[in-house]
């Protein structure tokens, strides 16, 4: 049984404090991977994986369990939801702003309608906002990012890919 019988709103609030392990400025609710919360005999949290092979998936699930148990929820279960698939469109407006402030150019909206891939369109530098930027590598430090360089302020930066 749930010790304190939290409300769904409380659980959502708690989940909004759980950071993404690879981009810790984002929480899992900013990232848009929490799809639902159900409170029955236990608390079930529905999570959507980002990339199929994302190594953070298990870490995130454990963080959710830890975060809720810390608040006295004894029985937590995780349900993986594949459909509809996660895309970068699930990242919240607040999450996009946090990414930019952190130095990662946020993805464009509309990934589900057409593939907006690195090199296809101007990416604004997260530091000086110039769109005079150059794709350095379609791949980066994690599967979700590409590497860019700003030709105006000369800083390298990462771009969150729209896929």
């Amino acid at each position, binding site marked *: 049984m749930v010790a304190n019988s939290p409300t769904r709103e409380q659980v959502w609030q708690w989940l909004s404090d759980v950071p993404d392990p690879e981009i810790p400025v984002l929480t899992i609710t900013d990232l848009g991977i929490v799809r639902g919360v159900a409170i029955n005999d236990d608390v079930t949290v529905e999570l959507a994986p980002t990339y199929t092979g994302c190594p953070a998936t298990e870490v995130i699930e454990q963080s959710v369990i830890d975060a809720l148990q810390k608040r006295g929820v004894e029985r937590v279960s995780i349900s993986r939801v594949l*459909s509809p*698939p996660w895309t970068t469109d699930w990242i919240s407006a607040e999450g996009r702003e946090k990414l930019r402030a952190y130095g990662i150019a946020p993805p464009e909206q509309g990934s589900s309608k057409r593939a907006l891939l690195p090199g296809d369109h101007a990416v604004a530098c997260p530091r000086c906002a110039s769109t005079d930027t150059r794709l350095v590598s379609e791949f980066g430090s994690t599967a979700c990012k590409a590497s860019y360089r700003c030709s105006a302020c000369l800083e390298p930066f990462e771009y969150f890919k729209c896929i």
Partner: protein
Amino acid sequence: MKSDDLLLAYVTRLGDNALVLAQRKIETVTLGPELEEELANANFALDYLGQARLFYTLAGELENAGRDEDDFAFLRSDHEFRNLLLLEQPNGHFGDMIARDFLFESFYVLQLEALERCRHAGVAAIAARAVKEVRYHLRHVGRWLVRLGDGTAQSHERAQRSIDDLWRFTGELFAADEIDRAFAKGFDGPDLEALRVQWQQAVAAVLAEATLKQPEDGWMASGGKQGRHSEHFGYLLAEMQHLHRSHPGATW
């Protein structure tokens, strides 16, 4: 075969293709010719590993006999794997790997697009996520093939040889058997004949841009989808499975 077994075999094959290609890619991690390719290859391997895990987990649920993803990956023997022969061939050189990925992924994107629209909810959900990843791969390897084919005399000649050598494994992509037909009929799955036409157009366009000649269809190797593998496959499995089999239940 009963219809449940046919469905299980179909899903397991999708997992086998993804796992075997992941394993071939993992073999080359740390050997990339430059940093961008190193990252690309490791990223792609991770995507395929993730897809294999999802297909195997679904297969385990369909089978309902207590097998999980690890049982499918590590505790089956060579004749139980039903992957395409194209994917188990040794990596060869960089051009060979680009040619293999290009020929397979040109097919796999079409297959996943059809699966995304199929009437099996579990398969459709995995395909919808996977297709976004594989489109990104295909764009990358397609560009490389153009760069190699339309590059120097040496890169052109070697890329042509890679395509020529691997062409005999492409017949199997479209050779429908009882398992393919059952999924096509039962769940509005891909019609491999229709896919062949689309694949030929897509491949021909890139080969032309790469100034490479499309090989004539000659004798085609087959058998992987039925569990009859080339001599290379046992070595691949041995390396992939030995840790799990030698130390059952090991954790770290």
